């Protein structure tokens, strides 16, 4: 079990996920989206989850707040948070966690806001759902929050409707609504993907700064390793529904242990050295017919005999408690290039 190999943290982690498996009922039969996902998030930690589209990172994020459609998705395993298992706690308890203890922001800041309510209403709403507070006080808090997320003249903007704001400002509003109750954890699912590059950097700075100043842990889900390198302390790599590597960001960038992580790093244009052609990982992520054993094996240049055996997430710390884990039995034999030297 992965629970055995998980790092033993010095104090109890904020969030503890064990054996998370998500299955979808489809017309073609069941589809196992994630399998045996286990990891912890410590208080105030900033964890980046990376992987190609379809690797299960977004689904994992949505399952934290039980936002997957219950008709088609079944979730097994445990998500331990503040003494509750979020996988099967009562709907009432779940609602008290959502927005209050764990906030969440999404990729599309336009469609993620209700178009017919003002942004002030929508920020104040997060507060008013969870505590008794007068309308005027909630509004004042919303203005204060708009200011904190860096929106100019918040007293005026509070009465704007979402369509009157730019994409970056909408994402700031989303962040304000997600953080106004001072949650312990903020899940950000591709928060900058839909934004301009310059705005992306601003939003990432904001997330990092708010997380640090309020000691809010951050779970940043992205396909962009650059984003993780910039804003996170730890990086979790997912492939075909499995966690394949878990490492502090600096270690992962310097010396990745899984061939897939290494491939991802080297395919980054702005982190790799200047070359004529970017290296890419051949092949595609398997979705339906999973290879037995290592799921990356068909695309892996290091694959040999033995890779067809089931792979466990191995403890790979060079020192005990460093929290490095990798799902590759050959990690000691192969030396993989990173991007930072």
């Amino acid at each position: 079990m992965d629970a055995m190999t998980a790092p033993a943290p010095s104090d109890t982690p904020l969030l503890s996920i064990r054996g998370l498996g998500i299955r979808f009922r489809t017309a073609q039969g069941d589809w196992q989206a994630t399998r045996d996902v286990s990891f912890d998030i410590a208080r105030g930690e900033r964890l980046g989850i990376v992987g190609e589209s379809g690797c299960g990172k977004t689904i994992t994020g949505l399952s934290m707040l039980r936002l997957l459609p219950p008709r088609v998705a079944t979730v097994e395993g445990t998500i331990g948070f503040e003494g509750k298992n979020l996988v099967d706690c009562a709907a009432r308890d779940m609602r008290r966690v959502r927005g209050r203890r764990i906030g969440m922001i999404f990729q599309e800041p336009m469609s993620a806001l209700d178009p017919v309510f003002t942004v002030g209403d929508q920020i104040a709403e997060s507060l008013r759902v969870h505590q008794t507070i007068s309308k005027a006080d909630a509004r004042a808090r919303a203005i204060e929050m708009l200011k904190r997320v860096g929106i100019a003249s918040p007293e005026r903007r509070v009465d704007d409707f979402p369509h009157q704001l730019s994409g970056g400002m909408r994402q700031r509003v989303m962040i304000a609504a997600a953080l106004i109750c001072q949650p312990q954890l903020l899940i950000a699912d591709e928060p900058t993907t839909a934004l301009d590059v310059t705005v992306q950097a601003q939003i990432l700075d904001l997330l990092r700064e708010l997380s640090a100043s309020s000691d809010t842990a951050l779970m940043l889900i992205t396909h962009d390793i650059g984003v993780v390198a910039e804003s996170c302390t730890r990086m979790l790599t997912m492939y075909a529904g499995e966690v394949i590597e878990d490492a502090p960001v600096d270690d992962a960038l310097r010396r990745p242990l899984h061939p897939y992580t290494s491939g991802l790093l080297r395919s980054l244009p702005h982190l790799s050295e200047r070359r004529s052609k970017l290296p890419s990982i051949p092949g595609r992520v398997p979705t339906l017919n999973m290879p037995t054993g290592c799921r990356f094996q068909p695309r892996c240049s290091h694959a040999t005999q033995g890779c067809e055996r089931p792979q466990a997430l191995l403890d790979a710390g060079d020192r005990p408690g460093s929290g490095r884990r990798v799902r590759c039995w050959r990690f000691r034999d192969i030396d993989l290039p990173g991007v930072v030297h």
Partner: protein
Amino acid sequence: MARRSTTRIIGGRLLQALPVIFLATFIVFSILKLIPGDIAVTLAGDNATDARLDEIRALYGLDQPFFVQYGAWLWKAVQGDLSRSLLSGEPVIAAIARQFPNTLLIVFIAIIISLTVGVPLGIAAAIKPGGVIDRLVTFVSSLGIATPYFWLGMLLVDLFALRLNWLPATGAKSLSVAPLDAIQHAILPAMAIAAGGIAAISRQLRASLMDILSSQFVRTLTAKGLSPSAILWKHGLKNVGVNLLTVTGLLVNNMLAATVVVEAVFAIPGMGNLIVRAAIQRDLPMVQGVIFAMVIVVILVNLITDLLCATIDPRIEA
């Protein structure tokens, strides 16, 4: 962003309506001219001499060229004079004032019935798609759309008027003369045209509410900790409001048209009866006047719908 003032919006919209009024009355005028037959013959009687016919034509301006006739009518209409009936000599405006309230009463009651039944059905269906209520709503609304309202009207008369004797079938008086009596007489015809209205409203509401409840922002609201009922009643209904208003506005217009037939079934002295009678007898000023009044009501309904939509949805500039 500065929003235009309401008065300016209304003014602009009314200005846009002028060509519509002009075109509608012009088309009706043309069609009535194209219909074979001569009103002068009707007025003069079967055995009138040619001289007598010419005299009558001159009296009513029927000898004038087509455009002159239309121009004369329009000029007077603009001044508030819709001429007189060729047959009874009654001012057209007086006939409309007498008959229109009965028609509006039917449409009003029909809309109330459609909304009070259709809205709860649509919401119930949207909450559990594929559930028992949803399938029932789909079935009933298919039936409601497919049933001809005049036939439904006759069934209603048979049941409520002839068998149960709860409501009167025919013999309605004008709303201004006997209000209670007019309301009693309006209920059955309103029920007849409300069947289609219930169907339209419940279907539209179901579709657009389901659409809204599966949109991205509902996921955000869930992630903020809102309960499903708070999401439905606060965010769902406000978002669906524009759609509901639009459907209701269209429905009012459709129902106005439907009264033409339904009033015949129930012998209601409304606009429908007025225009049918006038058209058969080629009472041109009367037909023109009724169309004119209907067009104005439709334009007003559309204007009110648009203004209400703009107050609900900030993205709409009326």
